[in-house]
């Protein structure tokens, strides 16, 4: 019953979305405010409608309605309530609904904003948002229906169908198969929503860009309106990626966090183009340049968002993330192809309107460095994309499938990321329009000396790897420059207005939140880089089989095996758990308990590491093997992961920076007003 209700709501959502598209196009072309308003209301309606669908699925998941195939596939009696709810995005059909749900929520939020000043964008923003939504909803209805049920035909054959086939009786399994145990982790509970929020919120800047192209209002208004959307999208995408890494670190039991897996790369690609976009829009705002390029970036990001959603939810590439083979591939590629080509055609149509208002003069000017930043991001993107499709390309041309592993990616992108870090340090001190080595040097010499001190400390503590030394120096360099820049501005303010330093700090950041929030985000990225350098360059490992009382040593840590226990847990797991004592340089630190959970419903085991985490390093312990009925012996694997915690700390700093940069201004439309005045001022100046 509930399944029929949810499915019905889904179909109505689809029809309403189609109506909205039609009404918006008609209203936009005929310039009819009534039709546009009707389309707006349609878009407003999609969110409550699809909420009904999503909530029916959640109720079915929670109330164990195993006659529904999706419920059967992703839940079981033994799963705790919160996992049953989040199983909504535990499989392909459910995640598509979840995607549409978020998309509808964002679309609705957009309709509710004040539209007075940019009403001419409205119909086209509706068209783009609703086409995207209708595509996903349509996919759920026609291909990946989460409401399909099991039936037993008159001849006793089992089948799956949405509606009762003639003569068939419902088939109700007594228990479900349960969520893939790998996904039963808090990181997995919030990682997909974060990623999807990031994906979905990039649709909004794209919608405004397309609206700007269609209406011919190609000034930078669309950028100013969507600035916050882009930033929020970027943060969610970043957090989604970080949470995915955290999940891999906690659950996959390989001691790492990032494996250059095709699906990871697929989620990383829109992040790269999105980051380039966030930076280059500032050039358009300040200098009226890069107008075409920004359009290209937002179009590419949108295509990559859809591509990423598709890759994470289909089986086209061999990956730990691939859930299932599915028929949605051709549809996705068709949709990406059509929207991409249509967007580019629109862009070419407006090509002449998008001429640059300024010109690059100095190699070291702020805008030139931003250009370099964009070039580097796009090169990393192309390299990743090339690595992703190379197996297919090589097979096509040579008949030989060739793939790349992590070393390939690390070798190529390592120098590029290092160059980006360097830019992150230099660019904030360069001036708009014109900078020379002399002016830059004058601004930079003090923090540079500080960063050299960092280098000296690294050398003194015995770091000899050139790559690591460069990495540490860059980290020190960016942190020193960022803090120096902050300090200088606070001091100037303090001198000028005699405000106490904390007040000066508060006001400084408050007056220019985007800039100083951006710098906080930079600091977060640098801290994350520190963690990545630590684990990539200094990870060590050892392993061994220990009897009670025997020890293993690694990087100053000593791990002594104490005991092992194995039991059946009432929640459907068999647990094997080792207890070890950990000490460092002879000092006792406590106990760790790495374990192996075996899930009966899914017939799969899961290795949960025992981790001792400090800001300096992680001791990461895996229970590899043990003998049955013998609690006196276990095989353990140890990883020493220096600095890895800074990766997670950095991501918290990111959120902080985002809050500062995206916090609503007291006068939310001031920037838009200024832009409008500037635009009209320029026209009269002609």
């Amino acid at each position, binding site marked *: 019953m509930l399944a029929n209700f949810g499915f019905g709501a889904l179909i109505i959502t689809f029809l309403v979305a189609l109506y909205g598209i039609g009404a918006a196009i008609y209203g936009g072309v005929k310039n009819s405010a009534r039709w546009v308003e009707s389309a707006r209301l349609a878009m407003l309606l999609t969110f409550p409608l699809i909420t009904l669908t999503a909530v029916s699925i959640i109720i079915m998941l929670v109330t164990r309605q195993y006659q529904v195939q999706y419920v059967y596939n992703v839940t079981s009696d033994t799963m705790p309530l919160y996992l049953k709810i989040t199983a909504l995005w535990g499989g392909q059909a459910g995640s598509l609904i979840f995607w549409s749900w978020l998309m509808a929520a964002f679309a609705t939020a957009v309709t509710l904003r004040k539209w007075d000043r940019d009403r001419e964008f409205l119909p086209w923003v509706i068209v783009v948002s609703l086409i995207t939504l209708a595509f996903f909803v349509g996919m759920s209805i026609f291909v990946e229906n989460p409401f399909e049920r099991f039936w037993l035909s008159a001849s006793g054959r089992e089948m799956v169908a949405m509606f009762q086939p003639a003569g068939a009786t419902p088939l109700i399994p007594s228990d479900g198969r349960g969520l893939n145990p790998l996904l039963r982790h808090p990181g997995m509970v919030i990682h997909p929503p974060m990623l999807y929020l990031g994906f979905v919120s990039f649709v909004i800047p794209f919608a405004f860009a397309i609206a700007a192209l269609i209406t011919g209002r190609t000034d930078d208004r669309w950028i100013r309106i969507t600035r916050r959307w882009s930033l929020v999208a970027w943060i969610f995408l970043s957090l989604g990626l970080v949470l995915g890494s955290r999940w891999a670190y906690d659950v996959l039991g390989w001691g790492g966090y990032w494996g250059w897996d095709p699906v990871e790369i697929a989620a990383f690609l829109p992040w790269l183009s999105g980051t380039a976009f966030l930076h280059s829009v500032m050039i358009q705002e300040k200098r009226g340049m890069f107008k075409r390029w920004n359009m290209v970036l937002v179009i590419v990001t949108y295509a990559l968002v859809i591509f990423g959603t598709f890759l994470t939810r289909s089986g086209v590439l061999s990956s730990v993330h691939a859930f299932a*083979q599915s028929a949605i591939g051709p549809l996705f590629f068709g949709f990406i192809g059509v929207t991409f080509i249509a967007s580019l055609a629109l862009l070419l149509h407006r090509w002449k309107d998008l001429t640059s208002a300024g010109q690059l003069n100095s190699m070291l000017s702020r805008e030139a460095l931003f250009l370099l930043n964009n070039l580097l991001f796009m090169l990393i993107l192309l390299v990743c994309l090339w690595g992703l499709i190379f197996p297919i390309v090589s097979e096509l041309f040579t008949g030989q499938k060739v793939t790349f592993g992590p070393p390939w990616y690390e070798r190529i992108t390592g120098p590029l990321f290092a160059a980006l870090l360097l830019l992150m340090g230099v660019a904030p001190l360069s001036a708009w329009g014109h900078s020379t080595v002399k002016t830059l040097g004058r601004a930079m010499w003090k923090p540079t000396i500080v960063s050299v001190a960092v280098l000296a400390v690294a050398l003194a503590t015995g770091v000899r790897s050139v790559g690591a030394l460069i990495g540490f120096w860059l980290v020190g360099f960016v942190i020193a420059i960022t803090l120096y820049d902050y300090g200088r501005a606070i001091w100037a303010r303090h001198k000028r207005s005699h405000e106490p330093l904390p007040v000066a700090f508060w006001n400084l950041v408050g007056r220019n939140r985007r800039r100083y929030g951006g710098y906080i985000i930079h600091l977060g990225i640098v801290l994350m880089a520190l963690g990545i350098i630590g684990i990539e360059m200094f990870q060590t490992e050892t392993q061994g*089989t220990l009897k009670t009382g025997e020890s293993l040593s690694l990087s100053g840590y000593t791990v002594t095996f104490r005991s092992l226990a194995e039991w059946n847990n009432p929640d459907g797991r068999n647990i094997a758990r080792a207890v070890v004592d950990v000490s460092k340089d002879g000092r006792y630190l406590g106990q760790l308990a790495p374990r192996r959970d075996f899930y009966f419903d899914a017939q799969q085991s899961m290795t949960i590491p025992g981790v001792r985490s400090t800001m300096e390093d992680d001791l990461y312990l895996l229970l590899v093997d043990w003998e049955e009925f013998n609690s006196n012996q276990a095989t353990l694997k140890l990883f020493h992961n220096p600095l890895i915690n800074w990766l997670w700390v950095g991501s918290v700093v990111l959120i902080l920076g985002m809050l500062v940069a995206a916090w609503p201004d007291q006068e939310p439309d001031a920037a838009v007003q200024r832009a409008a005045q500037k635009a009209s001022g320029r026209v009269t100046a002609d």
Partner: protein
Amino acid sequence: MENAAIERPASGSRAKFIIGGLLIIAAVVYLVISSTQASAQYFMTIAELQAKGASIGNRELRLSGAVLGDTIQYDSENLRLTFTIADIPADNAEIEAQGGLAAVLHAAVQDPTRPTLVIVYDGVMPDLLKNEAQAIVTGKMGEDGKFYAKELLLKCPTKYEEAVPDQAGK
């Protein structure tokens, strides 16, 4: 546009930017080519590998096959894992045509005439390693005709693929 007319037409600096950009792109292209030569992995099926024989040399290979559950042995003293995989097609379309990955893996394990290969892997026993899992291994052929894997990736399609339940209650 009007601003550009005021500023000096800086064709010289434009050339500078283009040359700088091209240099960076050239450097990246060089990195890509050299890394491809150093660390490309050749993806092939077990049947293809055995057809090529010794000519494969010391190249890094990536193979995929169906795990034969009975052959899994784990030496926990030395953390050495050995198991045998049976040939499956590498092409997705072909797998689909044969009824999906689960069916292909099942057929491969049941069919004793399939080419097989012994895999040796040093490391932690992966959770997903079991009968009829798909193993994707990266490594090199040893002199002894066994495949020494550096990296082992496993996929168990049966669990997440749509299937009809085998037990039903009222």
